[in-house]
């Protein structure tokens, strides 16, 4: 994973053993540890292990959904449909299983296929239709939300399968979701930095022109990135439905902006071509910890929105400009 063959990334810098992208991730993780220390300081009765476990469990939805967001941002795009797809995924799984574990066998693939399908539509619109990503994903989110609203009137009338609830509440030494998060992170990093498709996504993101010259399947890669983003949002929706024992159509909405924030805080370049999942994961953990600190401090909603906004802007400014890709 240390030999990301980005065509234009080679110039200037020497070949270090640690890719420079890991540095922001480590920095963000250090800040996260610092925040946990502040929580302990503010509220001395805090049980640190319980606190860290709570932070990790509540970070999983964001961490999973932000992987997809990271892939689209890697291509210089964005996926604004993530919140809606999360809600739809949760609604579908409770509607299809209707509280029965037996149905999970086919309901999970069916739900994930539909969510990936929404991403596929986004990708096709962007890659083949030439529609700007933010318009395409916003429009498809609005349309699919409308379909979901028409079919369900907003709330799942069926209970979530108990198996999914167990998945989110059981413990294996630590809460099971922490193992899920770990497993997901390994797969995500292996895909993004270890697979051929992953490296091609970097190449396409850094320089679409060069990618074309190299003969990379640009359309296919773009579609794949958005389909994966839909898939990840679907997984996050399933997990969220299991966590909250019920699904509502708008339950994914609070996660959209944080997915973008997690990617940006993790050191990804918003114009594409740079960013690793470890950074995004660190960003998600940081945001989850920050949210915890804000909650423990009982700050007002206005202040909390302000802080989140300021952090995104700060992260954008902090990105080193020299390598930035103008548009």
């Amino acid at each position, binding site marked *: 994973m240390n030999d990301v063959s980005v065509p234009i990334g080679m110039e200037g810098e020497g070949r270090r053993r640690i890719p420079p992208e890991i540095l922001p991730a480590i920095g963000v993780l250090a800040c996260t540890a610092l925040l946990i220390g502040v929580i302990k300081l503010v509220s001395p009765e805090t049980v640190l292990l319980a606190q860290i476990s709570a932070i990790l469990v509540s970070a999983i939805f964001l961490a999973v959904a932000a992987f997809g967001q990271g892939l689209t941002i890697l291509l210089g795009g964005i996926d604004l449909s993530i919140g809606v797809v999360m809600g739809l995924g949760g609604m579908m799984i409770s509607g299809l299983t209707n509280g029965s574990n037996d149905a999970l066998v086919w309901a999970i693939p069916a739900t994930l296929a539909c969510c990936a399908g929404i991403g596929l539509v986004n990708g096709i619109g962007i890659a083949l239709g030439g529609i700007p990503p933010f318009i395409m994903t916003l429009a498809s989110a609005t349309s699919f939300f409308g379909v979901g609203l028409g079919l369900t009137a907003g709330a799942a009338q069926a209970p979530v399968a108990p198996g999914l609830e167990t998945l989110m509440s059981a413990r294996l030494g630590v809460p099971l979701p922490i193992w899920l998060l770990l497993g997901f992170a390994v797969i995500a990093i292996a895909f993004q930095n270890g697979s051929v498709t992953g490296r091609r996504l970097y190449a396409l993101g850094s320089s679409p022109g060069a990618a074309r010259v190299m003969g990379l399947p640009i359309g296919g890669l773009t579609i794949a990135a958005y389909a994966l983003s839909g898939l990840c949002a679907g997984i996050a929706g399933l997990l969220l439905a299991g966590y909250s*024992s019920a699904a509502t159509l708008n339950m994914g909405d609070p996660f959209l902006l944080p997915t973008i924030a997690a990617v940006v805080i993790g050191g990804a370049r918003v114009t594409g071509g740079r960013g690793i999942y470890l950074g995004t994961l660190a960003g998600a953990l940081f945001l989850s910890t920050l949210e915890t600190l804000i909650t423990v401090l009982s700050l007002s909603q206005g202040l909390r929105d302000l802080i989140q906004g300021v952090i995104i802007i700060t992260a954008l400014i902090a990105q080193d400009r020299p390598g930035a890709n103008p548009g």
Partner: protein
Amino acid sequence: MRFSTKLMAALGGLLAVSIGAQAQDKPYKVFLDMSYSGNIWQAAAANGIKALAETPPYDRQVTFKTVISGTDVQRQISDLQSMIADGANAILVYPLSPTALNRVIRQACERHITVFTYDSTVTEPCAYNVSSITARYGANSAQWMANEMGGKGEVVINHGVAGTSVTKTYDAQALAVFGKYPGIKIVGEFYGNWNDATSQQGVSRILAAHPDLTAIWTVDGTYGSLEAVMKARPDRLVTIAGQSNNGYRLLMADKAMQEKGLKGLSSSSGPAVGPYAFKVMMEVLTGQLKLAYHNVEYPLPWVPHQDVRMCSGDRFENGCNVFPNGKVPALFIDTSLDGTLLPELSLGSIQDGKATSGARMQALPAVKYADNLPDINCSDCKAPADAMEPNLVKPIPVPK
């Protein structure tokens, strides 16, 4: 004897209906303007209203249309204007702002359109508000909790959606009540946005920092808040007040949970206020009811843990108020139904918006008029002196 009274009443009803039908040959054009229908509460309220609009005799008296205005006030204003232009006779609206709709509502009143709001209110005096915002949920629920806690303990406040008049009103009442007890310490506050997943995350965060918290005050997101405690601290539960999700009511009534320290209150604003407002509006529209004042109170749902009663059928009959596990999803809001004021509704009405088969509209009991609350349901008016005080629960003395 009883049968003949019923028969007489039915005949009387038929007569009244036929007179009403003569007076109005064409069906009334009635619009429902919903806010946001992406959540359980709004969907349940809207389905209850739709079901009533299909219940005889309304099914013949009314042509009913629903418009979803989303969360944008400007859009709601233009939707209301379209309804006026379309020749509405009555509009039932979930208002997105207490003041921004006043001008368009006044236009509607000038065209003799009957305008009702449900749950949220407007200050325009020609509109009728039907709501439980004046029923002091904040003061009553907080007082109930303070009593159950013996006037001491660590409380978490799960606010609703920031900036709404409901949140402001209820929060001020609850904080005033808790503030009277020096032994009650507020250890954390967050905005759960009336959302169970968000609330569960919020409580699990605070719980790690304050492992000894003893109580959670919520307006909604109650079930999620409780789930967070059940996961992190399954043997030591909390005193909690909030919404009326079926799963929550079942937990409240569960003896095993009570032994672990759970003391629950199920209250807060119920979706049944929507169909109730529709029924009041229809009685005003058809001339059966004359309202002396424009602010009507929908009684505050109030089910402490000892009052939970299991239902055997699809309706809230004989005082029952919860469905068995598995019959409805855990988040089904039990206050979507109201056995006393809305006997026409059944589970199917709330889930599919369909009339209960065989049901006919029954006359409403006398309405309860609401207190004035400045900038909420009136302007240039005064709230009663005790508006922040509980009126359903008697406070315990402050422990020494």
